[in-house]
């Protein structure tokens, strides 16, 4: 099956402004990332702050400066080279690829009614020919996101966090996209609401045949929603695998450390794995060799010099670690 999104060695850099004589500094936000996102999948991207996961998501929506590598979109109807796309094609791509943001309080204009918020993408992209058609589309997607007609007349301030996130979701989906980037879509929500929004996203994905890039720092959330997971560290992918495989048998020391750092609900379960020392290095001046070697308990001289590439450990399971075989 042709992947919906395919990237090869994609890199995103942000130049930093420096003094007159200062050396030009660059933030290496995303480095050499190659992924295939299968159509109809719920693809999870997990990492800590500064790992580059948000930038990667934005790059796929043409909202971050890609400096190298390739990115392609192919949904069977149209195929685009995401680095070369412009004009009408770009407009068309914008209706096919959408984003859901983290903060449902900041993402919605307080001066617009819920109906107008949801209708805006249709109007801006001129996807409907009459107001009646727009209203019809808005009502349809609102119902799918469990908002009722009475909600549509109100303003966002009248809604709770969970309801607002459902409004954001309706707005993202009203243009009938094929690909949705959900960036920390449940991170700002309370636990009791988070489950509801996750279930909603999964239902919609299944019913509408969508493909999701689900970005999150929360491994438990990823484990419960995604089919496939990629783990990112300092702009690089360190491990990719089907979700179950990744959580049952993680191979990269970073993935293992992440999993063992999650506080267990069982008070008697003392965390068995080693804890990570230190913090994620700066992407302005990333360390040589394996980017994780500064915190890795298994790092050797080889790790400090040679940067590992993703290699296939077993079918569908890739890991970028020089020592994964010996570490077992």
């Amino acid at each position: 099956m042709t992947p919906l999104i395919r990237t090869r060695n994609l890199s995103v850099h942000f130049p930093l402004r420096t003094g007159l004589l200062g050396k030009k500094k660059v933030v290496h936000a995303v480095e050499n990332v190659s992924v295939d996102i299968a159509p109809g999948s719920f693809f999870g991207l997990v990492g800590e702050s500064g790992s580059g996961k948000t930038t990667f998501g934005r790059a796929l929506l043409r909202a971050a400066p890609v400096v190298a590598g390739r990115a392609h979109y192919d949904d069977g109807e149209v195929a685009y080279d995401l680095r070369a796309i412009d004009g009408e094609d770009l407009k068309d791509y914008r209706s096919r690829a959408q984003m859901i943001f983290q903060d449902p309080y900041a993402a919605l204009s307080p001066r617009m009614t819920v109906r107008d918020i949801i209708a805006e993408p249709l109007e801006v992209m001129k996807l409907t020919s009459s107001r009646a058609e727009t209203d019809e589309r808005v009502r349809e997607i609102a119902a799918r996101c469990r908002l009722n007609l009475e909600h549509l007349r109100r303003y966002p301030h009248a809604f709770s966090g969970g309801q607002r996130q459902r409004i954001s979701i309706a707005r993202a989906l009203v243009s009938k996209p094929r690909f949705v980037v959900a960036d920390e879509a449940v991170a700002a929500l309370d636990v009791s609401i988070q489950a509801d929004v996750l279930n909603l996203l999964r239902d919609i994905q299944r019913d509408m045949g969508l493909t999701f890039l689900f970005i999150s720092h929360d491994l438990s959330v990823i484990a419960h929603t995604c089919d496939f997971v990629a783990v990112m560290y300092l702009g690089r992918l360190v491990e990719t695998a089907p979700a179950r495989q990744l959580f049952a048998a993680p191979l990269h020391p970073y993935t293992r450390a992440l999993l063992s750092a999650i506080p267990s609900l069982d008070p008697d379960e003392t965390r068995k794995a080693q804890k990570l020392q230190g913090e994620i290095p700066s992407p302005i001046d990333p360390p040589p060799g394996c980017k994780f070697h500064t915190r890795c308990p298994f790092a050797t001289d080889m790790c400090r010099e040679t940067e590992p590439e993703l290699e296939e450990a077993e079918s569908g399971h890739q890991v970028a670690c020089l020592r994964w075989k010996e570490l077992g």
Partner: protein
Amino acid sequence: MTRLLTVENLTVQFDTTEGRITAVDDVSFSLDRGRVLGVVGESGSGKSVTAKALMKLNPGNAVYGGQSKITLHLDGGEVDVMALRKARDLRIVRGGAISMIFQEPMASFAPALTVGSQMVEQLLIHSDMSKKRAREISIEMLDRVGIPDPVRRFGQYAFELSGGMRQRAMIAMALSTHPKLLIADEPTTALDVTIQAQVIDLMKELVAEFHMGIIFITHDLGVIAQTADDIAVMYLGKIVETGPVRQVIRAPAHPYTRGLLAALPRLDDLDAPLTPIPGDIPSPLERPEGCVFHTRCGEIIGDVCRGQVPCFHAVGEGRAAACHLYDHNGEGSA
């Protein structure tokens, strides 16, 4: 065990342009020395307002109920916190016997002063030590919380420290005055999980070393399970369940606690469906009558839940739940 803090019938309301809203409603609990009480709840549950009440840090539009009583049991005698008025007298609960760690360490340090000068300033306010000694103690504390190169960090500004480092500095500052009670309000929420694990371990070590009481506020049940001895679950300004953390998490008694646990994605069972608690948290302007949780409760009995505020009932050793399901049980102690 020695009692450190008693809170009785604490009620906090706020006067707003939209009317008077109730943030904390008739809350009672106590804490012994050397114990960690985890207060868990979602947005609007009143957990932070409760904590701030202990230091009288709520803003000027806060109205405390007439029955509210907060007693701090110190070696030198009891302090009636509600009766403290003058800034001088309030020092005892603001940095003297009680210290607080906040969620956002960036917002807790003044950006234009070095970390060190802020640490020294508070030591000088709360004790009569010399400036030189205050500096020594501050650097010692920075070292104690695992900050490498503490002398250099002492002279730096908050923005020069990473998130995890700032939170460590915050903890060092809060503990340098040797408080009897430490209030930690979501101290790990803004941190990445690998850094969170480091901070949790640090806090556990410090509890053992300093033998203070801790009130640990968080929305994260996993963090509570790993840090607290006892737990108080709050919903819409009410404590709905209390007890030892093991028992409450293993066999929650209140439908809200059960709902919270069922809604949590668990790594040990990927097949378990996520069960949200139905509906949304009501706005504080529309607090439900009767049991505050009845609008979302899956185990509602009937009119008794809609009309009558449930009392606490004993549901096991040291445990209590405010729920009509247990109306036939005896009165609880919380």
